[in-house]
Structures are given as structure tokens and as C-alpha cells.
């Protein structure tokens, strides 16, 4: 293992190459010499076997869904069907140029059109654009649409976006990118938005409100219709952050809750692979009054087949082409495999697993952040008591879980619950996996009581022990340089 942790640069030697990958040298004499580079870039010089072995071994230093339970809250780490991956790997899809003429693209366009219609059905909105390349870009599109809508109506004084406390960081960051000021709205002790606080915050400056439902607190926002009414009455619009749609799939359509615009994280609810940090995909859906503002291009259907269309008042493009097309194919394949019945069950079993896990953890001595509420597809455990009692933190628990062969839940999010773990088992995990997690948590709790040090210094069974984030930020080392001592 030590060996694989050397960098690829350490393995290189001048003049070594993966020759079967190197096309024959050709001259570029017509290019002016002053435009050419003098020194070749110091890319690694390794054999094909060295590259394959190095990256194969590196991969093994990761935890992943394919290897273990991965209950990372808010991220919906469910099984990524290999069949969907295969579908996107068809030659006709992989080799299609993004700007290929429409007559040569009818297969792809038909897929995109189908997916638009499926998503419209799922979210309960009349129009969808598939181009945003992740949730955050979907948020950007949605808020930009809200802004374009107000501006088109000459309602230009609206300068604020409301977000409930504990919203995901992308919400305020998006609002800022769209030129809005962010105003936080308090969350009540039961996890729902504090209606009084909302009423106090809302006003003529309100452009809109961004929220998820189930909220980042892991509970269903029960007064969502009231929230919608208050915001709408003030002239604002409602943005639905679809990161948590998995909980409601087949149960509630965001369009029916009063939302005007939303995104769906296909890499969550539609099971496309997370890829070690992406790619994702965040299609936006819009209610009637916002549909014309959708980012382009979208796929229309005419007499002569499918074609690209720019929505009439589109906010414009968000990417050079049309977003993460290959991810969209995977999502379509997943949707087709699930079908109507499958979609209903996703929400049900995600919710069943979460409530079961919450109940069992509670029985094992853990505190739920919202003990009187149903869990949605996820829920929050607060380790504040354990922290006081044993000095262990949520992060310590997280690290120690790694020793038990499980990925940790999300830590310290949402920010409003101290020492929290946001736990999302997803519907594709078996009851046995969920039980194993409870057992691990219970054992760590026992360790915290008897031998807190083992928890505080975890992990112990991985190739590396706990890493020093402070040093990383203080003594920035962001790239390999010849002579760096290797691991």
C-alpha cells in the first residue's frame, strides 16, 4: 500500500512512456517557433502498467457505495445502477458531437425529450430544462429566473432572498451570485420554519424564498402551504431546492406545494453516480409563469422530429453545450427501470429506513434533534450530550465509524444543531446494513464512555490516521514538485 501512495510523479522516469498510447511524432513546422513551448510540461513519464496499477491501487483507498454503507446525509448515496451506466456508454451516445446536426441526433434528442416529460410529471410542473450541471447550478438558474421575472414586470426593487436557518450553503451562495442579499429566517424548535419570523422578514424587498422540503432538519415542513402563501402574498416566488426530493418521490409533487421553480439533483434522487465529487445534474422545473425564462437549450418536438429550442425569455445558457448529457441518459434509464410503481416505493422505503434507523438509534441511547417528529428520508442525531459527558465530538464519531467499515454521516450540517450527524440510509440499503450501523454506533458510544481516547484519535484501521487540516491550510502544498519527499 505504501507504494501506491507514492505519487505518479515519483514513479516516472525520463523517457519512459506508455507507448501504445503515443501516436507517432509528426512535425509542426508551420507553427511559428515563438508560439511553441520550449520545455515540455512535466507530466508523469510512466508505463501503461504503472499508470493502471497506481490508479487501481489509489481507488482502493476510497470508501464508496460499491464498498460500504455510506449514509451521508443530504447526499442520497443510493445504489447507482450499473445498467444506467451501461446505457450511457452506447457508442452512439458517447461519440455524438454536441453540435451535431439535428437530423443525426434524433435518438439523443428523443431521450432528452422523454426525460423532460418524466421530470415534469415527477415534480408537477409544466416545463423543465435539463441543462444545469449540478444542484447549485440549478439553484442559480432558478434564482436567475426569479430575478428575470421580477425585472420583466418592472418589479425591480426586490433585493432579498429569504432562506431558512440551516439552509445548505449553496442557497445563500446562489442568491449572492444572482445579486441578492440573503436574509435568514429562523427555524422553530420543531424543525419547521418559524412562521412569525417569516412574516417579519417578508416584505416588498422579498424576491423569493429558497427552501428544501423535507428541510435540512430532516423533517417535512408541515406549514409549507402557509409559507408559500406568505411569500406569494408579498410578491415573492418560491424556490424548491430538490436535494431532498428522494423523500417525497411518488408522494408529493413540489409543484403542488406552491413552489414556482426548482431543481432536481439527479445524482441523488435519480441515482446517477457521485463520481468522487461529481458530475451531477440539476435540471430546473418551472411553473407556468416562469417557464419562458428557463435556461436553454431545451428539446422540442415538431413535425420533423425533435429539435433544440431556446425558451423565449431564457436567462441564457449555463454551459457551452447542454449540460451533463451523459448523466441525463443515466437518469432516464433509472427512471424507466423504476417506473411509476418504483418511484412510489423509493420515497416509501427511504422513509421507512430512516425512521427505523432513527428509532433504533434512539433506543441505543442517542438523542434525535427532532425527537417528536417523523424522520423524512434522513434525520439528525445530536451528540451534544456525549460531547459534554465524554468530550467526544460528532467528528470523532464520524472518524470512528470509518474503523467499523462504514462511511460517516454528514457532520455539522445543518449548522443550527450542535454536534450533529445528518444520517440518510437511502432505500437501497438492507435492514441488515442499517442494523449494523446501529451496532457500530452503540459500540462507539460504549467506547466513548470507557475509552474516549480511542474515539478521539480514530481512525485506527485505515492506511492513515487522522489528517491535519490546519497544517494543510496553513502550509499550502497544492502540487507535487520534484524533490518532495514521497509518502
Amino acid at each position, binding site marked *: 500500500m505504501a507504494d501506491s501512495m507514492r505519487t505518479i510523479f515519483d514513479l516516472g522516469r525520463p523517457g519512459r512512456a*506508455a507507448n501504445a498510447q*503515443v501516436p*507517432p*511524432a*509528426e512535425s*509542426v513546422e508551420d*507553427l511559428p517557433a515563438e*508560439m511553441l*513551448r520550449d520545455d515540455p*510540461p512535466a*507530466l508523469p*513519464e510512466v508505463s501503461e502498467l504503472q*499508470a493502471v496499477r497506481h*490508479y487501481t491501487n489509489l481507488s482502493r*483507498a476510497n470508501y*464508496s457505495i460499491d464498498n460500504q454503507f455510506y449514509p451521508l446525509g443530504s447526499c442520497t448515496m443510493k445504489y447507482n*445502477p450499473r*445498467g444506467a451506466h*451501461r446505457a*450511457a456508454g452506447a*457508442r*452512439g451516445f458517447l*461519440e455524438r458531437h454536441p453540435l*451535431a446536426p439535428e*437530423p*443525426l441526433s434524433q435518438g*439523443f434528442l428523443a431521450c432528452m425529450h422523454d426525460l423532460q416529460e*418524466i421530470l415534469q*410529471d415527477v415534480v408537477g410542473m409544466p416545463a423543465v430544462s435539463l441543462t444545469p450541471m449540478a444542484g447549485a447550478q440549478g439553484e442559480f438558474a432558478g434564482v436567475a429566473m426569479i430575478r428575470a421575472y421580477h425585472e420583466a414586470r418592472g418589479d425591480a426593487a426586490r433585493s432579498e432572498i429569504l432562506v431558512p436557518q440551516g439552509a445548505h*450553503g*449553496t442557497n445563500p451562495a446562489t442568491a*449572492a451570485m444572482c445579486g441578492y442579499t440573503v436574509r435568514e429566517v429562523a427555524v422553530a424548535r420543531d424543525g419547521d420554519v418559524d412562521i412569525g419570523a417569516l412574516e417579519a422578514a417578508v416584505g416588498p424587498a422579498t424576491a423569493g424564498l429558497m427552501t428544501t422540503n423535507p428541510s435540512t432538519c430532516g423533517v417535512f415542513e408541515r406549514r*409549507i402551504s402557509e409559507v408559500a402563501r406568505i411569500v406569494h402574498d408579498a410578491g415573492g416566488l418560491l424556490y424548491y431546492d430538490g436535494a431532498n426530493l428522494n423523500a417525497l418521490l411518488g408522494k408529493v409533487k413540489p409543484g*403542488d406545494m406552491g413552489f414556482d421553480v426548482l431543481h432536481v439533483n439527479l445524482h441523488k434522487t435519480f441515482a446517477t453516480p*457521485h463520481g*468522487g*465529487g461529481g458530475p*451531477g445534474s440539476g435540471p430546473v422545473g418551472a411553473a407556468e409563469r416562469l417557464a419562458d425564462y428557463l435556461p436553454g437549450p431545451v428539446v422540442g418536438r415538431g413535425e420533423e422530429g425533435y429539435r433544440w429550442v431556446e425558451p423565449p425569455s431564457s436567462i441564457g*445558457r449555463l454551459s457551452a*453545450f447542454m449540460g*451533463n448529457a451523459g448523466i441525463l441518459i443515466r437518469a432516464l*434509464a433509472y427512471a*424507466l*427501470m*423504476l417506473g411509476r410503481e418504483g418511484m412510489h*416505493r423509493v420515497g416509501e*422505503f427511504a422513509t*421507512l429506513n430512516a425512521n427505523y434507523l432513527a*428509532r433504533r438509534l434512539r433506543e441505543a441511547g442517542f438523542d434525535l434533534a427532532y425527537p417528536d417528529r417523523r424522520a423524512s428520508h434522513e434525520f439528525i442525531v445530536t451528540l451534544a450530550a456525549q460531547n459534554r459527558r465524554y468530550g467526544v465530538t460528532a467528528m470523532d464519531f464520524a*472518524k470512528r465509524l470509518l474503523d467499523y467499515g462504514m462511511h460517516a454521516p454528514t457532520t455539522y*450540517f445543518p449548522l443550527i444543531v450542535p454536534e450533529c450527524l445528518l444520517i440518510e440510509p437511502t432505500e437501497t440499503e438492507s435492514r441488515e446494513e442499517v442494523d449494523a450501523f446501529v451496532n457500530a454506533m452503540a459500540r462507539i458510544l460504549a467506547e466513548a464512555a470507557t475509552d474516549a481516547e480511542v474515539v478521539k484519535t480514530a*481512525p485506527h484501521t485505515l492506511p492513515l490516521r487522522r489528517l*491535519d*487540516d490546519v497544517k*494543510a*491550510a496553513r502550509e499550502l*502544498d*497544492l*502540487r*507535487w514538485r520534484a524533490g518532495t519527499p514521497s509518502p
Partner: protein
Amino acid sequence: MPFIPHTDADVAEMLAAIGVPDVESLFDEIPSALRSGEFTTVGDGLPEMEVLRRLGDRARRDETGPCFLGAGSYDHHVPAAVWDIAGRGEFMTAYTPYQAEASQGTLQLIYEFQTMMSELTGMDVCNASVYDGGSGLAEAVLMAVRANRRGARGDGSRVVAIAGNAHPLYVAATRTIVRNQGIEIVTLPHGEDGRVDPDALSRLPAPPTAVVLQQPNFFGLLDNVDTLTDRAHEVGALVVACVNPVSLALLKPPSLWGKGGGGGEGGKGGERGADIVCGDGQPLGVPMASGGPSFGFICTRQRLVRQLPGRIVGRTEDLDGRPGFTLTLQAREQHIRRAKATSNICTNQGLLVTAATVYMSLLGPAGLRNVAAACHARTLELVRALELPRCFEGPFFHECVLDVGRPAEEIVTALAERGVVAGLALGSYFPELAHGLLVCATEKRTGEEMRRFAQALAEVRNG
């Protein structure tokens, strides 16, 4: 129940443990008025076999003949090893490496990627990807505006001049994304020769905060980046370079554009070259795949690293002093900085970074150089084979605008009927170039394919 492992017995026992009679009860906090699970479009679930058949049939419809279209997406050979490795479950089904100790694979790989991209561009640091080249240019522009906060003349102005021959779709995405932040985008026009006149900068009404230059430019031409970089720095603008990473195996890295020595933020310390380098990583082992997923990258100087959007991996040590890797500088990111973050980007394009890193390792400096040279040689061959005049003189790389003597759109449509993806008709992007066809040949294109193209073209033009 595809992908759901629960047996009836599981469900019964789990419900009993929770203390509810049925699954429906778990949704009892949802006001019934909101309950509406009925689907109208979504049909019955299909087995994988059926889904693969249906989508496979559609994919087959789109299998075309040879592709001579570039314009930001290139039909390079992708070594088989690239996706065999990137497709491993450990890379594909992990997420953002929040738990560093359980994510050393992804983290070390990104660190290696950062190094490789820094080497290619000549910059000090690189981020772990943004979405794509288009949105990445927008992020680079926003970064430049943040970095040059006081504006070119210390007047706080937020004007960004983008070369008129930059990728029009990148510019479109940039306009969409920066629009609401009080940034004015002006065009740095290109001349009749398809390149930006070095004096164009001084003809702008006021010096810009940043200048965006693309090399090779959208027409495939090698532009006056040396002079333009120096001039931009002289007026206090930062230079954002938009590049094709494969071209950098041959071409001078943006870090060395110009001679340096100018004033302003960009010229601080007399540093030479671009301040920020961005682009799309698709040419590095990523299939065209209708344009995505690919990935964007942004590289910059050490002094601007805190303005760099997206994730960054740093090397550090564990409790025993062993080297390891972790996400760093997170204080710039949205989950901590929230409304003040460098960007709202969260999920980025990690798997494509994985592929690109493996690709660059397999190719190495010699391999990448040869790919770049082969692309260029094939394009020269194509231009000779098609026997059409060029729209612009002067050196070009890998892409070229040809004058087809009639609306190029017609040619593209007619060749599509013959299964050839002929290139990009420029009319809808540059009305003055309605007869212009932007063509490109990668190292994959054969003489036989070029003859087929030439012959189909001759048929269309004579018929």
C-alpha cells in the same frame, strides 16, 4: 421493487420497531391536500434488459460517419484504460472526499491532477474542476473581478473585455452567469484577419478590469496573445486565458505569454503571462458524449489562490506525521462562507478529473505532444483535401475556417444526409461569416475519411 432490498418480513418487523401500522403512517405529517403521487407520463417499470434495448436502439440511430466538428468538443482517442479505471466503483460511487482518511484515493488523484494542470498551463495551482469550459469561463471572470477589486484604475469599475473570437457559447454562458453582479462585458473585437488587433484594447472607452483571450481562438487561429497580455497588464487589467489543454503540449503556456513588466494588479512584481487560465478538459480523455459530462478547470498564480472557486486539495500529515491529502482552503467555499463564497459550486466534475488524470499519465509529455501534433497534421491534410479557400490567413492549430462559397448551413445539412459531420456553420454565431465552415480533424481521422468528406462535398457543391 428495483433496487430496494426489503422483504415483506423486513417491512413488518421494521414497522413494528417504529411502532406504526403501515408505511403510509410515516407520511402522516404531510397535509393530505399535498399528497399527489399520481403520474401521468411515467409508465410501468422496465427491466434493465428492456431499457438497454430501447436506449441502445436510439443510440444506434445517432451513430454517424466521421466527425469533422470541433468547436470545443473533440473526437480524440480515449485509451481503454482510462475508463476501465475511472469506472471502478471506488472512484465512481464515492462522493466528495469529506472524510479524508477514507478518501485518499480521490484526494491524491486530485492533487496529482492539480500538478499536471499546473504543469500544462505553467500556473502555480489548479482547482479540482468547475462544471465545464463555458461556465468555467464565467467563474474565471468573476474571480478576476474579485481579484482586481479596485478595478483597472482603482475606480472599482467592473468591466470585462472578452475577445470577439472567443468561443461564442462560452461567452453566452458567461453573460448568463455574471449578469446579475454588476459586471459589464464588452467585446474586444477581432479584425478581418480573425485575430484581435493589439491596439483594440486602447480603443475601448475605459481600461477593463480583466481581459479574456482565447488561444487558439475560436477560428483555430493563433492570436496575438503576447502583445495583448502585456498591453492588458499595462492598463491594470488581469488576463484570463481560455485554452485547449491539449494544445498546451505544443504551444507556449499562458504563464509565459508576453514579456511582463507592466503595472497594475496584473503586472504586480512585473509577472509575465496570464493571471488566470481556464478551459474545458474534454480533450483529456473524456468522450464528446453530446457535450457532457466534461469538466472545466481554472488555474492561477499562488497569490490569487484564495480567489479560486471550487475545491482544492492540499498535502498534509496524519497524526503520525505520514503524508496524506485533504480538502483545503474550505473557508472559501459555500458550505462555510455561504453568501460570501468564491462560488456556489458544490458538486463538481470529479469523475472526469479522474479520467483526465489517468489520461495524462498514460500519454505523458511525449504522448500529449504527439496527439497535439497529429491533430494539427490531420487538419492540415483535411484543408488540403477539401481544396477550399481559408477565410483567414495566418497560422492556425487543429481547427480552421474554410470558405464554402455559399451558406455553410446548407453544406452541413447536405453532408449530414451523407452521414458526415462536416463542421460548424459559423453564420448563426458570426453573421459576416455565413460562408464560413469551421472544420477540425483529430488524430483519429484517416485519409480515407477525409476523401469521403471531400467527395461528398464535391457532390453537394456540384449537384
